[in-house]
């Protein structure tokens, strides 16, 4: 995902129309691509959600039109409340901790020291690994009997925790793994945000006798607010979509205890032996709406920052 870029604005030209056609020619592959591989699948998805699709109807294409019935069904379902709550907890806990840890590390790495560039680069590793690799590693680390985490905690007298199989800890376990995954992104963005705060502000503050703690709260944190807002919102939009990590670690279980909206949608459509595409598509569309609300908020903030 790319932060909003200012569309290049130029004065309109008098002989623009020939140029316009040339431009359209260069953009044509993209436009065709967007229609075929974005608009059409999304349209099919809406279509799925307002029909009653079974596997057979899927192939034959004669599903019955049911209007908004599927939406009514999912809103009335018990899973909906659970999934919505879990999505909120998973998303908010993830982005808050990713942000706090990322910011602490960014401040730590700000005053370069020997090896700091190398170490900061190594922090990118979790971000670059395939999600399934990280997720399966965490699954093994958190396994009840042979997991290193339980073994470590056991050394301090903590009794065995069934991280992935207990209803009380499954959501916590996937959230921990997801926080770990998001730290590199927060670190990189916040670190580059810190670079734009001029060093003499800190020098002046330190001449005035402000300690590091005071400097952080009265300089770093307020000046970083725009970057923070963007980082948190992007993190939120990204976390709403997470499927891989949760699916590989718990498949949303036990029961629905770690089921988010994205997981619910995935499970209905692909996770069981009997695919149920219509409710899955309805849940997916609800998820799109939620993501877009925050997406527009993000674009709004971005625009205001560009104007100022």
């Amino acid at each position, binding site marked *: 995902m790319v932060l909003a870029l200012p569309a290049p604005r130029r004065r309109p030209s008098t002989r623009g129309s020939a140029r*316009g056609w040339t431009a359209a020619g260069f953009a044509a592959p993209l436009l065709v691509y967007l229609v075929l591989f974005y608009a059409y699948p999304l349209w099919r998805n809406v279509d799925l959600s307002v029909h009653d699709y079974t596997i057979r109807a899927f192939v034959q294409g004669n599903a019955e039109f049911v209007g908004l019935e599927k939406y009514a069904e999912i809103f009335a379902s018990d899973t909906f409340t659970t999934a919505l709550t879990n999505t909120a907890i998973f998303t908010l806990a993830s982005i808050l901790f990713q942000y706090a840890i990322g910011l602490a590390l960014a401040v730590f790495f700000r005053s370069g020291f020997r090896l700091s560039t190398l170490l900061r680069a190594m922090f990118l590793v979790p971000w670059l690994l395939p999600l*399934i690799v990280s997720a399966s590693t965490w699954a093994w680390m958190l396994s009840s009997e042979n997991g290193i985490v339980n073994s470590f905690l056991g050394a301090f007298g903590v009794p065995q925790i069934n991280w992935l199989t207990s209803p009380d800890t499954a959501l916590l376990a996937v959230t921990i793994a997801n926080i770990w995954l998001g730290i590199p992104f927060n670190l990189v963005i916040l670190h580059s945000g810190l670079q734009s705060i001029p060093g003499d502000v800190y020098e002046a503050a330190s001449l005035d006798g402000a300690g590091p703690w005071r400097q952080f709260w009265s300089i770093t944190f307020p000046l970083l607010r725009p970057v923070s807002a963007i980082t948190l919102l992007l993190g939120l939009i990204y976390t709403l979509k997470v499927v891989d990590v949760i699916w590989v670690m718990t498949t949303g279980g036990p029961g629905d205890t770690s089921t988010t909206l994205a997981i619910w*949608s995935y499970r209905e459509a692909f996770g069981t032996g009997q695919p149920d595409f219509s409710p899955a*598509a309805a849940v997916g569309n609800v998820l799109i709406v939620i993501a877009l609300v925050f997406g527009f908020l993000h674009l709004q903030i971005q625009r205001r920052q560009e104007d100022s």
Partner: protein
Amino acid sequence: MNRRPTPGASGRTWWKTALGVFFTAVMLFPVYWMFNVSLTRTSDLRADPPHWFPWAPTTEGYQAVLAQQLPALGTSLLVGLGCVVLTVVIAAPAGYAVAQLRLPGRGTLNFLLLVAQMIPAVVMAMGFYAVYVRLGLLNSVGGLIVADSTIAVPFGVLLYTAFMAGIPRELLQAARVDGANAWRTFVSVVLPLSRNSTLTVALFAFLWAWSDFIFASTLDRNGDLVPITLGIYQYIGNNTTQWNAIMATAVVASVPAAVLLVVAQRFVTAGVTAGAVKD
């Protein structure tokens, strides 16, 4: 190495380096653990407490990878490269049209591309499934390449646009004076200048396609050629006892990420600080 400490450098900040190494070690512990388990003998996997270091390393896990996962690695490579080509071919000219040719409606297009990146992959997967089922494209490498490219194309266009907008117009006008048309200018001036953008776009397109699980597990799950992410997933489902083989596959699947970080770290950070977000 210069042994005279520069003010504030080595002498006073060694503890920061130490602390930094400690933080990095904690952060990368799961990666170490993956590596450690991949070298652990099957009989030691259930040891209590777990072996912190593979004192008696075994290549059992890696032999299993070689024996079973080579086709999957090949498929992932193919999908990744296909995705790179498709992404660059579509994104580069579009970036040129938006940044330099004043494409009518470019503001709207920019907006649509930003919105496109916010759509959850699971929703796209369902849409693609519904489309592919009719077209018979399920379980095909081509279908997977197209689906995977949807992660990278909007990113690519926005990155190219940002860079190409900065190309001095005099340069392009000079080309025009020499009689080059728009296509010629694009191929012989704009593209060579945008080399670094192309590398960044290609790098992320490859990495995202290589790492993709959602599209692979929905559109290609019964294919003859499954990518490595699905290979790992099926492994987890099939033989839960052989975690050394699973982790060995995971290590091998991480190789591209490691290579890219070492070889092209400059471009990775360029991509992130240009505002790149995974997925």
